[in-house]
């Protein structure tokens, strides 16, 4: 057994990640630079990049410690859930979790958050689980985002869900398929919510009908009726987070961008796993407060903001330090990615039906579900990114393609042309992987982004300045 792969009896990737994450309690607030450096040098290289990515820059240090402590507590809850009589379900990151928090007898754990924890915390970055999936004969074109988490389940021992829930048939085959596969393979129930690729009122109505059926199935399975009062409580909390998200979005518009790059990752985890819980509101409130304070003081990590980048697809998440922190130090502000674009309809809390209607709209227009499950992938995608680029004032886009994502890879040429045609915004196209560094190492990513910013974005900006 290789160093660092050693696991205690009954442990697997998730348990290992949780065990290591406990070190987050060694940190208190106002941690010094020396303490961060010491911690980074104490751990193995992959974890070092996580520690530095979260803690090196003082602006985000306290927030990330606070956030990871809350995440750890949530993971502990997940581990206890079954012994406390709850059913543990795996959900994909495309499923708004707030609905599940409204069931007292359910505990939703997001597959991609499990993968992310394994990749960013464990020695070997979950590669052993990816390789395990391949050893079963699964195709290497699947998505590491979910396959690593799923494979850690299949490899056993450790955490075993009671059911698997998914909602991406028709919008993302690799995502839906690996979740369905896991349920078939493990012989556990699966619950499905399909979004018709139909944006007409008829399509939306059908989705609402599917949602009601989905809720009914969960109720029958758990023996618990979804209570109106409990749903209201959760949705009200979710909408407090929505207000903060709207503030966060507004703050991104400022130049230089006062929001630390790593908050993009934090927001993603909050939305995929914690939305509807109090901790989510607390973390988001702190994110907004920190960003406001930085705006007030005019703080920015680099001497100047060289480029404002919109990641037109998703971040690569296997090396926080060399992705988020590196760009921030270079003066490249990350304004968001496709997963950061949310559409929250007004909500009417007066009845269970009115709240479920709002939830159906949220889920219908949920990031990626909305675009990749749209009537036209390419048009919906380009429309939404154009909106974000214009609203936030991005200079350029970076498409960090993921080899599993055939929908975007199949339409990226159109997307790039169209973005240039509509807004004159250039897109750097890269192909790699969200969680597997073996696809495209971060050194290559950095080299490409640096060249792109130097040769394309900066020159374009300079030419614009000369003109004016």
């Amino acid at each position: 057994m290789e160093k660092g792969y050693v696991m205690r009896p009954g442990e697997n990737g998730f348990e290992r990640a949780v065990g290591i994450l406990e070190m987050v309690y060694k940190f208190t607030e106002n941690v010094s630079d020396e303490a961060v450096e010491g911690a980074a040098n104490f751990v193995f290289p992959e974890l070092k990049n996580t520690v530095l990515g979260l803690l090196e820059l003082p602006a985000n240090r306290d927030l990330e410690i606070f956030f990871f402590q809350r995440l750890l507590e949530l993971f502990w809850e997940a581990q206890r859930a079954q012994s406390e009589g709850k059913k543990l379900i795996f959900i994909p990151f495309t499923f708004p979790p707030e609905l599940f928090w409204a069931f007292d007898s359910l505990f939703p754990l997001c597959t991609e958050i499990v993968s992310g924890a394994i990749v960013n915390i464990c020695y070997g970055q979950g590669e052993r689980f990816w390789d395990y999936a391949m050893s079963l004969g699964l195709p290497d074109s699947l998505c590491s985002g979910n396959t690593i988490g799923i494979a850690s389940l299949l490899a056993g021992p450790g955490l075993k869900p009671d059911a698997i829930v998914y909602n991406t048939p028709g919008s993302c085959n690799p995502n839906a398929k690996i979740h369905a596969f896991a349920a078939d393979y493990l012989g556990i129930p699966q619950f499905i919510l399909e979004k018709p690729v139909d944006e007409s009122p008829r399509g939306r109505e059908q989705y609402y009908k599917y949602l009601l059926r989905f809720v009914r199935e969960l109720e029958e399975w758990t023996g618990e009726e979804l209570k109106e009062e409990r749903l209201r409580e959760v949705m009200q909390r979710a909408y407090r987070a929505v207000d903060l998200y709207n503030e966060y979005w507004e703050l991104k518009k400022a130049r230089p961008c006062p929001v630390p790059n790593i908050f993009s990752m934090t927001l993603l985890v909050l939305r995929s796993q914690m939305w509807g819980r109090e901790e989510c509101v607390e973390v988001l409130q702190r994110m907004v407060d920190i960003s406001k304070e930085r705006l007030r003081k005019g703080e920015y990590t680099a001497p100047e903001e060289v480029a404002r980048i919109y990641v037109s697809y998703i971040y690569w998440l296997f090396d926080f330090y060399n992705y988020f922190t590196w760009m921030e130090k270079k003066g490249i502000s990350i304004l968001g990615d496709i997963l950061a674009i949310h559409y929250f309809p007004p909500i009417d809390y007066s009845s269970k039906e009115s709240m479920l209607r709002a939830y159906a709209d949220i889920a219908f227009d949920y990031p990626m579900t909305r675009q990749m499950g749209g009537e036209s992938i390419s048009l919906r995608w380009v429309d939404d990114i154009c909106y974000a680029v214009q609203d936030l004032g991005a200079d350029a886009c970076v498409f960090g393609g993921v080899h599993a994502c055939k929908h975007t890879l199949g339409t990226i040429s159109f997307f790039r042309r169209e973005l240039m045609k509509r807004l004159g915004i250039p897109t750097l196209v890269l192909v790699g992987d969200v969680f597997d560094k073996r696809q495209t190492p971060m050194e290559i990513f950095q080299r490409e982004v640096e060249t792109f910013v130097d040769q394309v974005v900066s020159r374009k900006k300079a030419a614009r300045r000369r003109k004016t």
Partner: protein
Amino acid sequence: MITMAVSGTTLEIREVYDPYVREWKERGGRVVGYSCVATPVELIEAAGLLPYRIKALGNPRTDLADGEMSLFNCSFCRSCLQLALDGTYDFLDGLIETNGCDHLRAMFENWQHNKNLPFFHYLKVPHFFRDDSLEYFRGELDLLRDHLASHFSAPVEDDALRRSLEDWNQVRERWRELCALRELPEPRVTGSEALALELAGSRMTGKDFAELLSSFIEERKKAPGKKPRARLMLCGPATDEVAWLEEMESMGAVVVADALCFGSRAFMHRPGTGGDPLDELAEGYLTSIFCPRMYKEYGKRRSYILETARRAGVDGAIYLYNKFCDLHGTDSVLVRRDLENSGIPVLVLEKEYSAAADLGRIKTRVQAFLERIGGGV
């Protein structure tokens, strides 16, 4: 090119726009392309149009398509898109998209962005069968019927639809007879012949296709069969590579059964003709999509594959799919497990569409597999 003798004449499919389609067009007929077996061809035909199933006929070139789609996309879809972009498919008067898989959706979108066909319809097919999804699909067929009728000024009357249903049910009936001939201890029909027939039929009217099958079946009933060295079942997605099957069968095996999209999976349903024809079509189609794009239906696919394999008495099964096909790649793991648990050895092969470079590698593996199951040359 596909060549085979049927009723004393040679059936040739050399090109996408072949004489059958050419003649149809020359007579003033219009042609609508579709790709997925979930598309009810009866509706297209009842509007007086020729349904043409998109195929690439082994075209290995993808340079134009690669400018639109990535190399991580299915090479069959890229190959089809290539034929759209280079003008081969310019004879189409319209196109029906279905949400078969991510690759296919990207192919259709790029097709439409570049060619802007005057008739482009998106038929949204649910990913599971249930009363509520059936109701939705029924509505989708209504929309398709209306769109066909308004665009082509060709109302789709119920009577015409019933006639078309009967014609295509005849095709399905004949196909089952064809399968029975394949499954005989001394098969009268090879797998490559069956695939060639399906390719020919998928650009014909139901009536003509049924006649083609009848003639072929009558001829083969009289012909002697031959005991193969190994009896194989072939599972997988839409492949129209007859040459690949011929290569496999040239090693002494015969593909006596299949679960292919260009194959038996296209003929699973048998819509009734007594009730409302759109109701019959909706239920007939949605209950019979034996494709991994359907969710919570693996058990149904497993039963179908196991039952077919047992009935045909296969010695082994090959699961063949194109690189980057997540749907079939993932399903193949479960299918292999379940077939092998039933005592049927399985070879899973992943390849690029029509890549000559893959052929030698695949042949070596098939050869080794045949030796393993006792059918080696």
